[in-house]
């Protein structure tokens, strides 16, 4: 037997192919495909066990993407706008699994905003990714509620309602890890995803993900070109797995370090902005003001690694509820007898 270490194997001995998904049916160049790739990279590099992952989604081009990564994970493509509730039931029923929820801006911000908000409030342990292109891709390009004021459709029609900011909403409502990234920014997105996977609680990542077919033209504020030109990265984001050394050197005060639940660390090196990612008020302020300036601010806006997640609040036993044996879920006859006696 050879003891040679295959450089292509990760921490748990799997190769990249073990993380791949089905062949995408999305348009060539769609931002969503790039996000799937980053999810694959992040899971491979972190050595996440694909069978310990559940991937859930709603309906939309974005919501199809769970079929295009991690074939060995269980997937659930549910109904439009309701992924959060399905994820809640699933992850409460088996809290030992890692949940990745994928949604679109239509799926989350239009039809699904109610479930989104309540999931943030519960701080459900879930990586919640919005693949945000400002339109309903799958129904052929109508504006969604994240479309910016004045952004135009290919037909020239201009959006006259203000966008809803998912990050500000998530922070306001109780999510404990809130970030925005860009499908075209490989490095940042990968680091943010890794940190999100290590976080315990709701990690909400709004990823600007251009729709090449319906929203990548001049006049759109969600096109590759526009986002590249207007992206304002708040920080340089680095993720350092538990037990690993921090290799990059920072001047004191130049970076914020957040220790995550599993001991890994999130390093946020400041770029221009002086910003404290543990203050809700500061994050809301920053987001509101950057909006007014028309910038696409990316980075990690808020982290609270200490707040108990939903399953902790529920005081669940350690084992998955789903598969507790009968002896632990059906009280003995004596209990029934006693209850009956009390009703006589």
């Amino acid at each position: 037997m050879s003891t040679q270490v295959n450089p292509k194997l990760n921490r748990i001995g799997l190769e990249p192919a073990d993380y791949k998904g089905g062949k995408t049916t999305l348009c060539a160049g769609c931002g969503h495909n790039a996000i799937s790739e980053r999810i694959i990279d992040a899971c491979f590099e972190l050595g996440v066990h694909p069978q310990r992952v559940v991937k859930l989604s709603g309906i939309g081009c974005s919501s199809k993407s769970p079929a295009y990564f991690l074939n060995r994970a269980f997937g659930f493509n549910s109904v439009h706008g309701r992924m959060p509730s399905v994820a809640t039931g699933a992850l409460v029923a088996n809290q030992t699994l890692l949940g990745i929820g994928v949604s679109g801006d239509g799926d989350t911000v239009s039809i699904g905003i109610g479930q989104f908000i309540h999931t943030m409030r519960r701080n459900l342990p879930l990586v919640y990714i919005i693949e945000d292109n400002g339109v309903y891709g799958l129904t052929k390009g109508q504006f969604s509620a994240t479309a910016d004021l004045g952004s135009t459709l290919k037909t020239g029609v201009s959006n006259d309602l203000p966008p809803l900011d998912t990050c500000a909403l998530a922070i306001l409502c109780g999510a404990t890890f809130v970030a925005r990234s860009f499908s075209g920014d490989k490095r940042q997105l990968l680091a943010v995803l890794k940190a999100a996977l290590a976080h315990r609680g709701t990690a909400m990542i709004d990823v600007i993900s251009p729709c090449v077919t319906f929203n990548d033209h001049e006049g759109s504020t969600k096109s590759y070109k526009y986002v590249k030109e207007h992206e304002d990265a708040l920080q340089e984001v680095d993720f350092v797995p538990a037990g690993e050394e921090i290799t990059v050197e920072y001047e004191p005060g130049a970076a914020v370090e957040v220790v995550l639940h599993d001991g890994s660390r999130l390093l946020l090196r400041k770029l221009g902005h002086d910003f404290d990612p543990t203050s809700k008020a500061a994050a809301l302020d920053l987001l509101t003001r950057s909006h007014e300036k028309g910038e696409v601010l990316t980075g990690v806006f808020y982290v609270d690694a200490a707040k108990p997640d939903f399953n902790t609040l529920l005081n669940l036993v350690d084992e998955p509820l789903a598969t507790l044996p009968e002896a632990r879920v059906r009280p003995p006859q004596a209990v029934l007898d006693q209850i009956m006696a009390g009703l006589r």
Partner: protein
Amino acid sequence: MATSELEAVQPSLASELVNDFSIQVATVNGSGSQSSNMVLLRSIFQMGIPVSGKNLFPSNIAGLPTWYTIRASRKHYIGRKQDANFLVAVNPETAREDVAALQPGAAVVYDQPLQLETLRSDLIFYPVPFDKLVAGISADAKLRKLVRTMIYVGVLAHLLRLDLAEVESAVRRQFHRKPKAADLNWAAVQAGLEYARQHLVKRDRCRLERMRETAGQIIIDGNSAAALGCLFAGVTVAAWYPITPSSSLCESLLDLLRKHRLDPATGKATFAVIQAEDELAAIGMVIGAGWMGARAMTSTSGPGISLMAEFAGLGYYAEIPAVIFDIQRVGPSTGLPTRTAQGDLGSIAQLSHGDTRHVMLFPGSVAECYEHAIAAFDLAEQLQTPVFVLSDLDLGMNNWMSQPFAYPSQPMRRGKVLSADDLQRVGEFARYRDVDGDGIPWRTLPGTDHPDAAYFTRGSGHNERAQYSERPGDYAGNMDRLRRKFDTARALVPPAVRERPGAGRVGLIAFGSSHYPVLEALDQLRDELGIDAGYLRLRAFPFGREVAGFIESHELVFVVEQNRDAQMLDLLRADLAPELAPRLQSVRCYDGLPIAARAISREIEAHLALLAPGIIGRLTATPA
């Protein structure tokens, strides 16, 4: 004034109503009369007399008219009785109307200042100075208000010959956590009793007498019973949103789980109960949990059912176990939230767009609320589909006598689940393949530690391997299998029960909370018309073969239900051989009150009257 009226007021002892009458307490909600009524009910029950209590309350929180009806029936008639023999009129707002509604000869206990005695001369009036009596109980006005209604318990105890020891024990039981309150209430009962002894001359015909008919029995409401069922079914995830009349199901379930399902070693919970933000989320959580392999449930009423439509279709098509209790109230829309109906079965049978079919259970008693809850979890996992348990406000929120519930005789049936070992052994896994010919495929649970375990669940078209597919054949084949699965359900659900053999060609079909009134109506038909009708009680949809069998063996079958549109009859028509359809006749009641035996028998009588007398003879004769 003629003698006939005098007769009515002073009935002969010969026509005494022993253990066979009903008392209606007309009061105001939020006024504490609930405790007094429970004491009355319990006292009668403890005297061994079959009894039932029904609360007719408004859809608000306090200050509006409420009626509580207690019926004692030596013949075990525990359905609603249309006319009260005894009125306790303590709500000034409705007192005049309440009195006007009584049949001649009925008795009225009332608050003296209301002067109801001036209203009619064909009733028996028992004035009681509530305020004066309660003044002696406590100096504290707030406390006086709380115990005021106990006065009528004492008055009735005297008039109806309640066993005082039972009354006291009922009072002490009601306030077992607050001995001081118990004392005060008992004092109020005694004050009423004393007053009645001294000032009231009994002139009514109602009397209670100890029996041995309730020994060993329990009193419980259907929602608590269903909650008990969930507990013993081993539920692990419950997600719900409050709505009348279903809220108490999940609320009592939460109480039970907190008491009986904390891990003794760690104090941690073997359950999760989530108050969702609405019904869409509640059912979504249940679907998520059921997919994961948990026994998951929700409970709601009509409006919630409507909101669950989309997820119900997903559950059906993606084949995910889920248990949904619908404690039916009067629709459409908000309707009458505190009135009872059986009006949701039609929409639930095919809840959601497209070709969906749902399994429904129809508990007919509190015991079945318990049993069907357990059965529902088994069925949901065996069939991998949402299972709806249709109770109603009458069953769910009212108190009913019952034999104690039996501990489950079978271990939990968790359906066709492949473990990692199974996968290793069978070598191949296709999530939606009909391996066994019963339409039920095998599933794996997320987290199963095998590289081939995972599959992709979706509400969109899929092939046997759970892969996305738009192929006509894949789609139609899958739909056909789902139909087969639904056919398989016929044999798995609780079969209809032949409650009465009958001795003629007239049959009666009913379900749910109509059961006890139907039993009484059958006696009326027999005693008054000489018709000994057979009676089949449906307990589930889809219907088992026994349903067609029953109809085949009767020429005329009345389908009794509590809705306007004959929803069960439509389901039967769609399911039966069309040749049988002409035999079915509809008997409906849909005014929000629990159906009464008299309404059933009267309507059947009216229907029979339309038939030629010869036919009636033939119908009632014993079949060859």
